[in-house]
């Protein structure tokens, strides 16, 4: 008798569970941060964010940790975007931009905290452990469906770095370019650029970290690496002896944006801050100081 009772209980529980599933599964609504404050793309219409709301006091409600602006980036943090792998020293373009944005919002430097977020998990669903992520992340429409981007803080072009002894230094017509093995870092838009614009015949190599790409260049496993111009400039001038930035490619409209959790309202105030920094010349000053793009980096066609 005991065993038949157990079987009956099991059967009833089963039926109840199925009913529960059928009823509830269809009606779950996503409850991560108010989906109603909709799809912010990079567009800068800060809907009704009045000047008062973008002060230190005004943004408290939107922060990950009250009283602190939490900014995330990856490890290692590469120059010229950061210096000495210490985002908190305020040096490097992205570090400086982050502190400048924080200042616009009324945060003191001591009220900015840095968090480590690997790129692969920065766009994971669920709550973010930061207010925004600054990590040379390019805006794309597909990506903007999953996260919210700020406006551009840097407009990007792709560039080539090669060893001085490589034939690509002198032979880089569009037809020549198709014959080389290129290398780039995973998660960047360089691979899409290589495949859509350069269209090489051999599959490019994609490495986990920028250091691996540099290593591959030095051991001649790739003919050239493709990355954004400031990084290329830094690598060829300071990091890999015997290397040279061959050229950069024309802009495709790509830009870097700060990455926010989808629908995070803080992006409105941040965009205002960026607009101010752009109009008062801060961004170009920082670019000149850290990104060392003077004039005439040659531009070639892919």
């Amino acid at each position: 008798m005991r065993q038949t009772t157990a079987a009956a209980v099991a059967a009833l529980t089963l039926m109840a569970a199925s009913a529960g599933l059928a009823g509830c599964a269809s009606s779950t609504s996503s409850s991560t941060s108010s989906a109603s404050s909709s799809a912010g793309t990079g567009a800068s219409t800060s809907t009704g964010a009045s000047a008062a709301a973008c002060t230190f006091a005004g943004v408290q409600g939107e922060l990950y940790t009250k009283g602190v602006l939490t900014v995330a980036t990856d490890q290692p943090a590469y120059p010229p975007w950061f210096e000495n792998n210490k985002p908190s020293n305020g040096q490097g373009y992205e570090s400086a931009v982050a502190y400048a944005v924080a200042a616009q919002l009324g945060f003191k430097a001591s009220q900015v905290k840095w968090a480590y977020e690997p790129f692969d998990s920065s766009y994971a669903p669920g709550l973010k452990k930061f207010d925004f992520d600054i990590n040379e992340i390019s805006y794309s429409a597909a990506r903007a469906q999953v996260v919210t981007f700020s406006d551009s803080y840097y407009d990007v072009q792709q560039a080539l770095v090669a060893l001085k002894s490589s034939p690509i230094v002198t032979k880089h017509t569009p037809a020549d370019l198709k014959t080389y093995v290129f290398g780039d870092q995973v998660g960047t838009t360089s691979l899409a650029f290589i495949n859509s614009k350069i269209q090489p015949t051999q599959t490019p190599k994609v490495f986990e970290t920028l250091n691996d790409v540099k290593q591959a260049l030095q051991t001649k496993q790739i003919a050239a690496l493709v990355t954004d111009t400031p990084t290329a400039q830094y690598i060829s001038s300071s990091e890999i002896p015997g290397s040279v930035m061959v050229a950069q490619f024309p802009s495709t409209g790509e830009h870097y944006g700060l990455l926010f959790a989808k629908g995070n309202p803080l992006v409105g105030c941040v965009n205002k801050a960026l607009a101010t920094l752009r109009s008062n010349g801060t961004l170009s000053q920082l670019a000149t100081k850290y990104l060392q793009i003077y004039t005439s980096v040659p531009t070639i066609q892919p």
Partner: protein
Amino acid sequence: MAEAQGLPDLSARRSRLLGSSDRRGLVLSIASTVVVLAAVLAVFLLAPGSRQVRHTFFNPTDMWRAFVGKPSAGYYSVGEALWLNIRMFVTAEILILILALVVAVVRQSTGPVLLPLRLVGTVYVDVARGVPLILIIFAIGFGVPALQIRGISSQSAAVYGVAALVFSYSAYVSEVYRAGLSSVHRSQAAAARSLGLSGWASMRHVVLPQAIRIIIPPLLNDFISLQKDTALVGLLGSIEANKAAELYSDTVFNYSSYTVAAILFLLLTIPLARFTDHLIARDQARRLAGARL
């Protein structure tokens, strides 16, 4: 009756509701399995973030796109990339099975002539098992090209990856072989030698066949593990399935490509496991010809 002789009634208990005890057991096990699975599923589907997680990890559109690939957008076909993994682990496994057997036989030998080789074998196994595979991959994958030796230094990343996998796994598999060899009772070797078979012949015809039958499950284990470890070769830049999944994921900010890769690996692993079970069962059946144990 049985009771009269002091034994309880030994015939299978019958329940009014569910019939014989065999059938009752079956119903219970099915019911309890379904309940547990339903409970797990319920937790998953009823969680607050469930819809977002399902979209991020199990979105059919993204899964299809990742499976097909679009190089110009910055991501390759996960399905096509899997072919690289397959080629790598098939090649590696063949080499591993051979190299590991050589190492095991050498280490089990007793003659004084082979002493230096035995020492080399022991050092090799210690090093290869002691160093994490990821470091070995880096060492070979970046180190050998850096040496700039003509011919050897200009292979594809997959070649170095396979070399690293063979170097690492052969050590583990050689220990599995050794376990198998020592689990064959030495009376078998004694019997074989007593018939006049040489040490090598008795190993080949008597000891090794028995040893291998015994160690097929752990060998399969290592093989399945190897299939997954081919993902590490992506660190050397080659576009294998997991790297392809990562590329899609980073481009579009959706993890469904990883689900595709996982499913594809499962499709490889499960038939292999069932086939091995079948081999073992067939060998048992032939030996025992219908006996139950």
